[in-house]
């Protein structure tokens, strides 16, 4: 679904490349989380996927990015928008309309989709994101989490196969963040939309994503199934990616030689690990 080959990018007026020889293949229906310290090039990578780079933000672009079979250099943003939906960090800055309905219609109107079709698509994407009750709301009335879900609805109204989200929960409270990830999970499982999400809250990523990509200084450092990536605790801690408390707990137990096995990804699994260790100790 996404093929990135030897991608390097250098922003104008910048000496250090933001991306340095990235190679990444993401298949259909994957739920991929991208983590990494600030300045690792995560956002730049997201902008390369939706064609904003190189069409809107300029710089030196090397390599090849293909989304849904479309080369991002040969196709303009509008054509890529049919395949890749984008959601950004700031809920305030990506909402252009004053009514929820109009916000979802915005992309459809831009692509000259007929009126009747727009009405059907609005209904569909509101249902998919579970916010049908917000349809007649004014966008200024919404909470941050609701705004982000409207942004997601607006992105999927174009029926993209891929959804790219750049830190969608960074300005949200824990409840709002959870809502977003539940929505993403639903879109991934029920509608098999490929999801690529950049996120600082590693706990959410470990619980929801099947695959993790760790970036540092414009390169991909680690890439693989979530548990396998989490096993590289030394590297993660060295580059300043904090793991969730349950992962750290398991890592400490492993270091003490008390536990061998897979890394837990949530509290339930951690409970099993700890009770196993305790029962072995007792014996």
């Amino acid at each position, binding site marked *: 679904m996404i093929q990135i080959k030897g991608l390097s990018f250098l922003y104008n007026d910048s000496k250090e490349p933001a991306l340095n020889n990235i190679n990444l293949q993401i298949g259909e229906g994957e739920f991929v989380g991208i983590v990494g310290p600030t300045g690792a090039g995560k956002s730049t990578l997201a*902008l390369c996927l*939706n*064609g*904003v780079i190189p*069409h*809107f*933000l300029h710089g030196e672009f090397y390599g090849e990015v293909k989304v849904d079979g479309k080369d991002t250099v040969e196709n*303009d*943003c*509008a054509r890529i*928008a049919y395949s*890749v*939906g*984008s959601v*950004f*960090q*700031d809920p*305030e*800055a*990506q909402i*252009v*309309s*004053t*009514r929820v*309905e*109009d916000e979802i*219609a*915005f*992309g*459809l*109107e*831009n*692509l*000259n*989709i*007929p*009126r009747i079709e*727009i*009405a059907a698509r*609005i209904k569909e994407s509101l249902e998919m994101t579970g916010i049908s009750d917000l349809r007649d709301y*004014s966008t*200024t009335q919404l909470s941050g989490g609701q705004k982000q879900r409207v*942004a997601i609805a*607006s*992105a999927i109204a*174009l029926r993209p196969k891929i959804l790219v989200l750049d830190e969608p929960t960074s300005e949200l409270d824990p409840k709002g963040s959870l809502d977003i990830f539940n929505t993403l999970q639903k879109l991934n499982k029920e509608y098999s939309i490929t999801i690529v999400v950049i996120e600082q809250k590693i706990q959410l990523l470990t619980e929801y994503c099947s695959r993790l990509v760790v970036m540092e200084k414009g390169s991909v450092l680690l890439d693989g199934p979530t548990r396998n990536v989490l096993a590289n605790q030394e590297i993660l801690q060295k580059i300043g990616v904090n793991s969730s408390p349950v992962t750290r707990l398991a890592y400490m137990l492993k270091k003490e030689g008390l536990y061998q096995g897979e890394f837990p990804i949530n509290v339930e699994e951690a409970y099993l690990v700890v009770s196993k260790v305790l029962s072995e100790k007792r014996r």
Partner: protein
Amino acid sequence: MPAMVEYIQTDSFFHRLNPITKILWTFAVLIISFLFNSPIPILVILLSNLLIALASGIIKQVLPMMKALFIFSFILILCQIFFVDEGKTLFYAIPYFNIGKVTDAGLNMSLVMSFRMVATVSTIPILMMTTPMTDMVVVLVEKLKIPFKYAFMFITALRFIPTLMGEIEQIMQAQMSRGYNSDTRNPFKKMVIVIPLAIPLLVSSIKKTEKMAISMEARGFASGPRSYFRKIVMGKADYAALVLLLTAILSPALL
């Protein structure tokens, strides 16, 4: 802090009118106010504006604006009323020294000017408060053939008012928590005080604009011909209102 002219959702007769009818109404008020040269008919128009605001359920928001407009127009009156020499002298502002002569012609002219100003300007917030911006854009682009980019610029500017208000509040609190005193009644001091607020606001709004542009770009903005979700039609009420407006414009000619 709510923005000055935000759309207020209620289900009133005036809300349901076609935006074009309402735009024509603002022009009709303008034309009629200039056709008359005595204060009473213009006052009647002014009252009709208030009546529309009352019927639309936005009188609470409109009254303070009217008040502000009247204060402004009173200042305008003071600036010119003493300079009219024609007509009968009614009284002097400072009686014993015969300074500040007020004539009937002067009073008449000032009242006409003042009512005219308030009547014509107050239609704009009434229009804005009763018409959703998206509807306005649809008629501006589809009926009045204004390029979409300009219409879009206009609505985004309005859309950003509450956002920027929130931003100002935040910056102000940040500055105040570091001991910055922004509390003064002196307007000149206030101007100086605003500068440290204006620069961060400018920087953050430029950043916001860029983010918004990227988000719009990712949804195919300005990629070619555009369709519109909302459809706005002229109803019976619109034609009735247009007939009413036309008679109102023609009536001074008949009188």
